[in-house]
């Protein structure tokens, strides 16, 4: 068979994972890692040129195209960042080359599984992919072998497994609902078929299914109260992985949720998934915003902010409607870019200062102006201040939902405000004020961070029409 882009974005990571597992030298490995990620990204881009044909197992449409490109791109930039990050980790002996081989292999494996989850045209396959992704990240979170790291990895592992189990049950239920209509066999698990016939499914079964899927994949998305693994995994793992987790894995899980939401949207009898999603979204927003205030660890703080933003996104999708869905997609993209950029900055900062404790970091704009202002810009973006992209999406979310659900939107706005207060409260002393901690200058690659921030800034001012069209199509699909 001929290898089209669709299979390519799976093959490249898979092969390079295998190669990296055997490759000794970590410098070379890092380069290969970056190259592979870049190749994957380019292949993903090529999908816009020549649309690959969806098959029985793999599928590509407007929805996952967006996700794929985003994933591969951030996978690439995060790879670049990790290259310069591990240099330092090796230098201070926090990691050994042996671990790095494993690390790079896992990195590509993660890329593979996430791409698979995105392009899978089969709910079972997607479930498997998500599980693999989870397991790989679990291993990478624990890579430092410190007590805390193992702690976090274990927590992540257990909660993740339960989530996986629930998701599987939901998947089975969907199949059960589909079977009477579509008939036995693989067809009853194929997205394209499911969506086309979903109208006839048994709504009650779909409802139960959605509950399990919401909880199962919601665990991965990090919605409160299923979020518990997320902050620790972000805080204790290597920073590139934190960036990938926040920037990508959450999106992948979200993608799965959206797929099933589309399914239910087609079926008239089923309860609108909206209320459930809106509720969980709001809970997450309020909860995470409040959690921001008493954080001591900078990475954990931004992890909570990820929970908050996932809440916003889920809220937007839950509200539905072309504007809100558009906003949700935009917000997701912007959040991925911004949050990963922030983690890039935080990674270097933590390396310079030798700590992640907020109390021990201070006056960055004095000692490391580039990092400091970069972080500040990232925070400004993440709290939704213009002219950066997140402001636009929040603008759309709030203004499009307020008349429909005044109370809910007011709660959301309230949460946004609390989050703003929390982040600024904590970050002010880090970026400005008295210098605390070592004042060494960082040997960092600022390119990924500022690429992301530049994109976010651009998006806040000007969205390229092609992107807009894509988003609008997807928004229509999401109903």
């Amino acid at each position, binding site marked *: 068979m001929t290898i089209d882009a669709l299979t390519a974005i799976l093959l490249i990571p898979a092969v390079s994972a295998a190669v990296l597992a055997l490759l000794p030298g970590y410098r070379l490995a890092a380069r290969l890692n970056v190259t592979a990620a870049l190749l994957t990204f380019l292949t993903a881009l090529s999908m816009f040129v020549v649309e690959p044909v969806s098959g029985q197992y793999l599928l590509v449409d407007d929805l996952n195209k967006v996700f794929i490109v985003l994933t591969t791109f951030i996978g690439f930039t995060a790879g670049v960042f990790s290259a310069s990050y591990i240099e330092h980790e090796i230098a201070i002996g926090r990691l050994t080359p042996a671990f790095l081989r494993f690390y790079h292999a896992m990195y590509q494996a993660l890329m593979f599984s996430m791409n698979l989850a995105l392009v899978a045209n089969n709910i079972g396959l997607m479930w498997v992919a998500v599980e693999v992704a989870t397991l790989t990240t679990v291993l990478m979170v624990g890579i430092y072998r410190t007590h805390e790291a193992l702690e976090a990895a274990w927590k992540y592992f257990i909660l993740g497994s339960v989530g996986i189990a629930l998701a599987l049950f939901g998947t089975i239920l969907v199949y059960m609902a589909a079977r009477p209509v579509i008939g036995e066999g693989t067809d009853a698990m194929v997205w394209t078929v499911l969506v086309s016939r979903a109208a006839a499914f048994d709504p009650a079964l779909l409802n139960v299914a959605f509950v399990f899927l919401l909880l199962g994949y919601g665990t991965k998305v990090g919605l409160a109260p299923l979020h518990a693994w997320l902050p620790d995994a972000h805080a204790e793992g290597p920073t590139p992985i934190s960036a990938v987790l926040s920037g990508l894995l959450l999106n992948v899980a979200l993608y799965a949720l959206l797929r099933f939401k589309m399914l239910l949207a087609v079926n008239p009898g089923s309860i609108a998934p909206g209320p459930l999603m809106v509720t969980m979204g709001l809970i997450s927003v309020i909860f995470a915003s409040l*959690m921001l205030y008493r954080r001591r660890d900078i990475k954990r703080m931004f992890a909570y902010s990820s929970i908050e933003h996932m809440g916003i996104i889920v809220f937007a999708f839950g509200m539905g409607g072309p*504007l809100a869905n558009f906003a949700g997609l935009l917000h997701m993209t912007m959040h991925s870019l911004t949050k990963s950029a922030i983690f890039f900055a935080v990674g270097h900062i933590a390396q310079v200062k030798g700590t992640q404790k907020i109390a021990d970091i201070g006056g960055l704009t004095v000692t490391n102006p580039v990092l400091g202002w970069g972080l500040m810009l990232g925070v400004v973006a993440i709290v939704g201040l*213009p*002219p950066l992209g997140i402001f636009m999406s929040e603008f759309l979310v709030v203004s499009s939902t307020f008349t429909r659900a005044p109370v809910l939107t007011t709660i959301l706005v309230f949460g946004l405000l609390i989050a703003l*207060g929390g982040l600024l409260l904590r970050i002010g002393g880090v970026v400005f*004020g008295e210098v605390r901690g070592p004042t060494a200058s960082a040997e960092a690659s600022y390119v990924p961070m500022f690429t992301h921030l530049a994109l976010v800034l651009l998006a806040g001012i000007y969205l390229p029409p092609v992107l807009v069209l894509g988003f609008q199509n997807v928004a229509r699909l999401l109903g």
Partner: protein
Amino acid sequence: MIQAALWAVAVLLALAPVAIALSQTARGSLIVYGASLVVSTGLCAIALVILLDPARPVTAIVLPIGLPWLGAHFRIDALSAFFLVVVNFGGAAASLYALGYGRHETEPGRVLPFYPAYLAAMNIVVLADDAFSFLVAWEFMSLTSWALVVSNHRDPENLRAGYVYLLMAGFGTLVLLLAFGVLTGGSGAYDFAAIRAAHETPAVAGVVLLLALLGAGSKAGLVPLHVWLPLAHPAAPSHVSGLMSGVMTKVAVYGFVRIVFDLLGAPEWWWSMVLLAIGGPTAALGVLYALMQRDLKRVLAYSTIENIGIIFTGLGLALAFKAEGSDVIAALAFTAALLHVLNHALFKSLLFFGAGAVLTATGERDMEKLGGLIHRMPQTAVVMLVGCIAISALPPFNGFVSEWLTFQAILLSPHLPSWGLKLIIPAVGGLLALAAALAAACFVKVFGIGFLGRPRTAEAAQAKEVDGFSLAAMMLLAALCLIGGVLPGLFIDALAPVANAMVGNSMPHQSSVPWFTIVPIAESRSSYDGLLVFAFMLLSGSIASVAIHRLASDRVRRAPAWDCGFPDDSPAIQYTASSFSQPIRRVFGTLVFGAREVGEMPPPGSAATARLTVVMHDLIWEGFYAPIAKVVGFATLRINVLQFLTIRRYLTLVFVALVLLLVVLSL
């Protein structure tokens, strides 16, 4: 026209990144401020041309940026033209001042890049013609000014000020966002034209009004949303303080006027009730707070709150008359408000520049460490004096004119139908009068303590007059304060198109009245002639002096001060800022600040010193903000437990969620 304006704004925006590079170089500040000066002047000229030629058609333009399917709409009508003038004149003055003042900047890298961006943001707010660009610019304005506030970040106080400021700004923006959410009703039509076309029901419109009042009010500094203002404005470099107090609060006023007078359609009578009920107390409280301060820049910041109160009172009156249908008087009140916007922009910038000059000369903001500056800094003293008289609403300067017009509007209000207004308007009038009198007291204190008397510290004694640029800027503003007071007719006529656009009528054409007299409305038989009054004063004053010097003695002997026979060389015996305001504190303090004087007398026979301590409370902060902070703090503390649960507990959460959802399904 509008293209030119947008290009100018673009230049300002482009200047920001350039400034990052320039800030390292020695001439950096010169280039940046010079460029901003040129651009602002150009923008000001453009706006003036548009404002003074009402016949010119309103120009609008749509750029393919911002919201994709909407684009960024920009438009210059009379209202935006007027505020463009305010913004850019203030900007030009500040830039001119900063040409000199900016040289003393310790860390130019933290000021230069944000300054032009800040100017640009304020311009875009006024130019914007759709909700999205408006809000983007609005919040960008807050953001850049916040960066300027924390530019001196070593002082933790400034960081706190910046934090409170940005938080309140975020609050305001989100509230405005809700307001626009209501206005657009969830449809994607965010451009003002569409919003204007859609007519809301009274209830909805009322909600929008309240939201707009919260949003714009928090930026303008209406009590009780003002708390950030006295923290943030003084923290910034003085030319920026001038911009924030003199100009940015006006941009907030613009936002309010744009939404309520333009987008919202016909007003209800109770709207004005709300505005008056807030505006009057804001004026009085603001100036009372100002009187109690000893930090020069903080006094000015609080007095900004007072003037915002006056402006909003004017707007409230305008709404009342507009709702009642007598748009001639509405035009009067509206013009009064706008004129005060302009005047306050002039003299508040002037005063902040003066404060900056004092700061550079002495390094002190605390008035109790100043004194006698009139000898060391004569020119600064003169312009400060002008500013102080003008802001105290005393003839022959401009502050009096707008106040006078406001009073005239109040005097024409008895025939308003609603009883609420009948009761509230006289009270508000009384509050405005009180505010005016207290303002005079306040600025007697500012000038008397700061510039008169004897220097209280070595710094004050060694003060030097500031550089030419700063003086030029201040003198320009002072001159305009005088012109605005002597020839108010010109300014009022310039405002006619704005009033026509917003309240559907305008004040009588003043230039046609002889002797440059101004008349509030044709029917009323009141009038004021700044020119003649000024002329008479000059005349009689000079007559007196000439006559006396000619006919009687003109000899002068210098001798030590008599002081009732108790002369004392120590400057410490002079009245201090706090002792000056003590009588007023005795009168109002207990009510407004819960002020108490605690005196500790030593026991009889002991040689210990007796001490008097004054306890004052910011009741608004303690009664309103502190509780909120406490609640949030408590909530965070309680909820923070969730960070420390065991895995089993977390699993329990998941389990409970699952069961709950299933139960919901099975119901």
